């Protein structure tokens, strides 16, 4: 079974498309599809922490087992190792080209695509920007990105609730990403699952809009803990909503003291300089 590329779904569930183009063939079982195999070795991991509250969840066996002659095999492997290995390959790919890769995560509707559109219009003359769009179903976001003027590949994950490293690896074979450019990856709108899946990006950028609750960082701590930058979007609506920017930042800082913040309005343009400044600084670092 191979789940990292979504192929345990119906065969055509994950698709890769470019606006105006045809579906790219979903290659299965060919060279595109090698998965590095590590050999698990039985090393005893020293467990220096004690687990005073381990809960075993034993399962009632509805069937008989002959446990005679049974033996125990040590494994000690990370469940996400395949994703993590592929993410490391992607990271090497970005490093080799001096490309800054960012993973944009948020709830649906926080303004990821709007921020990308605006960023492309403002910065495309200054730096090469390429976009990977993750969405369960449609090509809509990719069309908006293409209209804004950046090369884009749409990944439709079907039922999948997150992008994974294999999807990005595959996308990188279909997309031209210029050296020293920026790859902006819009993840599927979801603040839970994408936190677990490293894509090989330099940083996760979490976007929250002021029409959401300012307690989002408490509700989705894993995502705010994994991010390096938090964009607070739709500040033009602040006069109309009950959103306490400082309370939101405090809650996020308690989860992640190192988190940086930018407040902006992607559609009106206020505050964008903070985001562009962060982007330029990170791009310069990645290009070294």
């Amino acid at each position, binding site marked *: 079974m191979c789940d990292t590329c979504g192929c345990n779904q119906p065969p055509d569930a994950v698709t890769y498309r470019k606006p105006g183009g045809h579906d790219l063939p979903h290659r299965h079982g060919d060279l595109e599809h090698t998965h590095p195999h590590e050999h*698990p070795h039985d090393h005893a991991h020293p467990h220096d922490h004690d687990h005073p509250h381990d809960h075993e*969840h034993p399962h009632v066996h509805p069937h008989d087992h002959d446990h005679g002659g049974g033996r125990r095999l040590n494994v000690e492997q990370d469940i996400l190792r395949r994703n993590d290995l592929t993410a490391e390959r992607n990271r090497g790919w970005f490093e080799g080209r001096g490309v800054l890769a960012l993973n944009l995560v948020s709830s649906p509707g926080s303004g990821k695509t709007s921020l990308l559109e605006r960023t492309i219009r403002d910065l495309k003359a200054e730096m090469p920007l390429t976009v990977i769009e993750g969405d369960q179903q449609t090509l809509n976001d990719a069309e908006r990105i293409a209209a804004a003027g950046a090369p884009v590949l749409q990944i439709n994950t079907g039922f999948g609730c997150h992008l994974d490293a294999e999807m990005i690896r595959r996308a990188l074979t279909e997309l031209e990403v210029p050296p020293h450019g920026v790859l902006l990856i819009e993840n599927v709108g979801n603040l839970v699952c994408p936190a677990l899946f490293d894509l090989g990006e330099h940083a996760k950028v979490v976007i929250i809009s002021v029409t959401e609750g300012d307690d989002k960082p408490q509700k989705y701590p894993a995502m705010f803990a994994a991010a390096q930058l938090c964009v607070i979007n739709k500040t033009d609506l602040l006069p109309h909503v009950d959103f306490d920017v400082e309370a939101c930042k405090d809650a996020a800082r308690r989860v992640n*003291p190192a988190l940086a913040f930018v407040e902006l309005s992607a559609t009106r343009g206020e505050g964008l300089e903070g985001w562009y400044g962060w982007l330029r600084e990170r791009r310069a670092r990645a290009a070294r």
Partner: protein
Amino acid sequence: MHEMTLVAGILEIAEERAREAGAARINTVTVEIGRLAGVELPSLIFCFETARLGTLAAGAELAVRELPGRGRCPACGAEAEIDFYAALCPACDGCLEVVGGRELRVVSLDVD
């Protein structure tokens, strides 16, 4: 949804290890799941019971060891058990950094 992805990872690791050791079948797969890893255990077990069919672990149970969240205070070094991220230091009111509880690991297999 991502519990199905995790189960696929668990089964792949388990089958690979069992085959390598020449085992005929897997009776128990023991995993460690940190309480801050964002995994729904009932959903994980439900997915396992669906996905194990047709694998060497077809009759196996999933034994889940839940590991507690642990935080350490960057200011004073105190450690405490935490069950949510934003935990305050019991000694100095600093914010604890998460140092444990995000584990997602296959620990061992019982096989024949």
